[in-house]
C-alpha cells in the first residue's frame, strides 16, 4: 500500500492519509490484498482508502463535461510528479495541443513533463468518415503504439480517454469488444495501473457497457445544475477487494484540479487541544468556566439583526491578534473598511492588526460561487495564510445559495478542515425569528462546540441586548441570561434583575428595581409611622399623667390648706374656750383638751 503522503498540497489530506494508514479498529480499512496507487486527486485517496487498484484498470464513467478528462490527467500527472510513476495519456478526443493548453490553465506544464520524459501524450485520431473497413482487422497497432509509449519512459500508469470513441469510429463492435477485453488483460499483465474513461449511457453505466470489461474498480462522475450552479458528485460504484466510501461525494474542479469532499468520512483523529483562549470579553470568559473557549473549537454567535454578532467576533479577533496569532476574517456582508470602521466605534482598532499582517480579511459574496467552490477558495486562503483563528461572518448567507442539507454538509466539511488544522473558528449566524433559534438549530448545531445566542428583547418601547450560552461542550458554564451593553470601551455584561417575577432587562429592570425600592421605602415608612404612633401614645400618656398629677397636686394643696385651716380654726376655738375657762377657773378641762390637739398634729 502506498503510504506516500509527500505532496505539495494541503495539510488536510495528509492527516487523512495518516488516519487511514493507522487502521484503527472500527474504521474501514482496505484489505491487505489490494495494493493501491495514490491518485493524488485531493479527497479521492481518502474515500478509496489509498487510491486505485494498482496494476489494474479503473473505469471512470460520466456525462459530457463531468471531469473525466481532468480525472484521467490528474492521475497521470500526480503519478509522474508526486509518486515517481511515469504515465502515458492516450487521448481519443482532444488533440495534444488542446490538452496542453487546457491544463496549462490549472498550472500543469505538460510540455515540460513530456520533455522530462515523465509523461507521454498520444492523440489517437479516429475519424469515421476517413476510414473504410475492408474486412477483418484488430487493434494490434494500438497495442504496439501504447506499448512503445510505455516502454519509452518506463510508464507505470496509463489513461485512456475516452476509448469509446473507437465504437463510434468503427462499425465492428463485436470485434472491438473482444479487442478491449484483450487490451485490459494486456494492461493487467504488464502491471499497469490504468484509468479508462467512458461516456455515460442511458440504460447502463457507460454507453458501450465498458463496465462489463472493467470489473475491479468503477467510479461514476455526475454533474447536476441546480439554480444555475453546477454541483458535481463522485460515487465509487464498486471496488473489488476493498472497502470504500459508499456515498456520493461532492467535488469541484477548481483552479488546481479536482477536489473531492469526503463529507461523511468521520475522522476521530483530531488532536483536540485543552488549551483555552479568551473570547476577548472578560465577563464572557467568566461565564465559560472562567477561561474562555477551547482552542480549535467552533463557536457560533447566533442572533437577529443588530444584536452585535460581528462585534463579538471582532472582540475575539482583537484578543487573538493581541496574543500574536493570525486570524482570517471571512466576510460575506460587509467590506473590510466597513468592519474596521464600525469596530472602531466600540473601541477596537482592527486596522493595526491588518497592518501587522496578523489579520487578513477575505471578503466575498455568497452568490458568486457554488457552495463547493466557496470551500475550495476558503481552503486555499487557509493554506496560504495558515491562521490559527478564523471568523466567518455570517454563515446564514449560504442559505441563499443552497438548501439546508447542502449548507450543512458544506459547513461540516469546512469545520472538519478547521478541526484538523486546530483552527479556532468563530461563526456568526443571522436568524430571522426572535427568541427561538430556527435555522442554526436545524443544520449546524451538531458541529458547533460553543453556542452563544444574542437577542434583542423589545419591551416597554425599548430594546435590550441579552446574551445566553446555549451550550458549551466540555466545560461547566453559566446558564444565566446576561444583559450586555456596548460602549466605546467595549462590551459590558451586566447581571440581570432576578426576582420572583422572572428575569428582567433594560429599563424594565430599572423600573422593577425602582418598584422594589419603593416597596421597601413604603415598608420603612410604615414602620416609622407605627413607631411614631407608639411614641405619640407614650407621650400622650406621659403628658396626661403630668396634667393629672398637676391637678392632683393642685387639689391636694387645696385639700391640705383646707385641713390646715380647719385645724387652725379648731385650735383657735379651743384656745378661746380655754381662755374663757380660765376666766371661769375650771382647771381639769384644760389638760384634756391639750392632749387631743397634740394627737391631731402627729
Amino acid at each position, binding site marked *: 500500500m502506498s503510504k506516500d503522503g509527500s505532496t505539495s498540497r494541503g495539510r488536510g489530506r495528509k492527516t487523512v492519509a495518516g488516519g487511514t494508514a493507522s487502521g484503527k479498529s472500527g474504521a474501514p480499512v482496505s484489505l491487505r490484498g489490494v495494493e493501491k496507487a495514490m491518485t493524488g486527486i485531493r479527497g479521492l485517496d481518502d474515500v478509496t482508502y489509498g487510491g486505485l487498484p494498482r496494476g489494474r484498470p479503473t473505469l471512470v464513467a460520466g456525462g459530457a463535461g463531468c471531469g473525466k478528462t481532468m480525472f484521467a490527467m490528474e492521475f497521470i500527472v500526480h503519478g509522474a510528479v508526486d509518486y515517481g510513476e511515469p504515465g502515458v495519456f492516450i487521448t481519443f478526443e482532444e488533440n495534444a495541443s488542446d490538452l496542453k493548453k487546457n491544463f496549462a490553465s490549472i498550472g500543469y506544464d505538460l510540455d515540460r513533463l513530456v520533455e522530462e520524459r515523465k509523461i507521454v501524450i*498520444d492523440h*489517437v*485520431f*479516429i475519424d469515421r468518415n*476517413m*476510414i*473504410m*473497413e*475492408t*474486412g*477483418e*482487422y*484488430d*487493434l*494490434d*497497432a*494500438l*497495442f*504496439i*503504439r501504447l*506499448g*512503445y*509509449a510505455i516502454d519509452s519512459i518506463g510508464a507505470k500508469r496509463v489513461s485512456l480517454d475516452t476509448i469509446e470513441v*473507437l465504437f463510434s469510429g*468503427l462499425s465492428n463492435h463485436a470485434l472491438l469488444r473482444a479487442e478491449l477485453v484483450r487490451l485490459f488483460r494486456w494492461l493487467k499483465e504488464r502491471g499497469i495501473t490504468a484509468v479508462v474513461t467512458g461516456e455515460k449511457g442511458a440504460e447502463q453505466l457507460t454507453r458501450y457497457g465498458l463496465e462489463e470489461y472493467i470489473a475491479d474498480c468503477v467510479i461514476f462522475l455526475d454533474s447536476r445544475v441546480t439554480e444555475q450552479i453546477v454541483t458535481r458528485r463522485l460515487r465509487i460504484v464498486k471496488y473489488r477487494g476493498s472497502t470504500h466510501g459508499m456515498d456520493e461525494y461532492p467535488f469541484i474542479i477548481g483552479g488546481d484540479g479536482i477536489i473531492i469532499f469526503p463529507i461523511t468520512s468521520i475522522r476521530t483523529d483530531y488532536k483536540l487541544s485543552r488549551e483555552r483562549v479568551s473570547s476577548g470579553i472578560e465577563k464572557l470568559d467568566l461565564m465559560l468556566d472562567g477561561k474562555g473557549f477551547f482552542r480549535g473549537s467552533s463557536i457560533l454567535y447566533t442572533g437577529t439583526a443588530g444584536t452585535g454578532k460581528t462585534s463579538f467576533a471582532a472582540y475575539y479577533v482583537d484578543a487573538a491578534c493581541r496574543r500574536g496569532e493570525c486570524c482570517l476574517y471571512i466576510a460575506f456582508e460587509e467590506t473590510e473598511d466597513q468592519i474596521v470602521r464600525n469596530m472602531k466605534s466600540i473601541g477596537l482598532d482592527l486596522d493595526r492588526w491588518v497592518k501587522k499582517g496578523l489579520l487578513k480579511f477575505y471578503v466575498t459574496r455568497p452568490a458568486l460561487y457554488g457552495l463547493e467552490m466557496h470551500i475550495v477558495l476558503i481552503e486555499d486562503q487557509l493554506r496560504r495564510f495558515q491562521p490559527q483563528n478564523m471568523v466567518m461572518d455570517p454563515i446564514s448567507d449560504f442559505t441563499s445559495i443552497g438548501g439546508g442539507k447542502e449548507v450543512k454538509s458544506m459547513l461540516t466539511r469546512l469545520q472538519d478542515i478547521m478541526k484538523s488544522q486546530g483552527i479556532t473558528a468563530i461563526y456568526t449566524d443571522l436568524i430571522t425569528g426572535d427568541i427561538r433559534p430556527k435555522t442554526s438549530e436545524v443544520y449546524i448545531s451538531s458541529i458547533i462546540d460553543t453556542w452563544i445566542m444574542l437577542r434583542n428583547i423589545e419591551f416597554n418601547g425599548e430594546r435590550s441586548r441579552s446574551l445566553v450560552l446555549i451550550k458549551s461542550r466540555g466545560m461547566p458554564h453559566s446558564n444565566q441570561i446576561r444583559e450586555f451593553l456596548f460602549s466605546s470601551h467595549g462590551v459590558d455584561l451586566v447581571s440581570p434583575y432576578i426576582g420572583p417575577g422572572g428575569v428582567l432587562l433594560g429599563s424594565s429592570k430599572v423600573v422593577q428595581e425602582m418598584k422594589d425600592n419603593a416597596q421597601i421605602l413604603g415598608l420603612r415608612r410604615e414602620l416609622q409611622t407605627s413607631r411614631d404612633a407608639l411614641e405619640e401614645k407614650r407621650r400622650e400618656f406621659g403628658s396626661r399623667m403630668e396634667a393629672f398629677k398637676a391637678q392632683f397636686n393642685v387639689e391636694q394643696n387645696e385639700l391640705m390648706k383646707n385641713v390646715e385651716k380647719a385645724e387652725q380654726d379648731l385650735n383657735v376655738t379651743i384656745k378661746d374656750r380655754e381662755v374663757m375657762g380660765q376666766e371661769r377657773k375650771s382647771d381639769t378641762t384644760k389638760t384634756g383638751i391639750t392632749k387631743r390637739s397634740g394627737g391631731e398634729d402627729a
Partner: protein
Amino acid sequence: MKQDTSKQETWDLKIYVAGETEKSRKAVANLRKVCSEHLKGECHIEVVDLVKNPRLAAEEQIFAVPTVIRKLPEPLKRLIGDMSATEHVLVGLDIKTKNS
C-alpha cells in the same frame, strides 16, 4: 469520372501490419490483387511492419492493423481490414464511388 482521371496517376500505397502473420500476408496479397486488377497507372505498395517500427504507429496515426494509407494521389485515404472486401477497397481508395 474518377476512373478516367486515375488512369495515368501514380499510386503510392502503404500497408501497415503487425508482424509477419498469416493475416498480414493475406492483406498484402489482397491489396496487390486489387491494384493489379483495377489500377491502370503505376502502383507502389510499401509494407510496413509496426512490430519492427513501433514508433510509426503514433506518427502515422495507426491504431488497427492492417491499415492501408493512400499517400498519393492526394487526398490521403485510410483503409483498415484485410482488404478482402474488394468493393470497399475500391471505394476506400476512391477508385470507385459508393453508388457506382
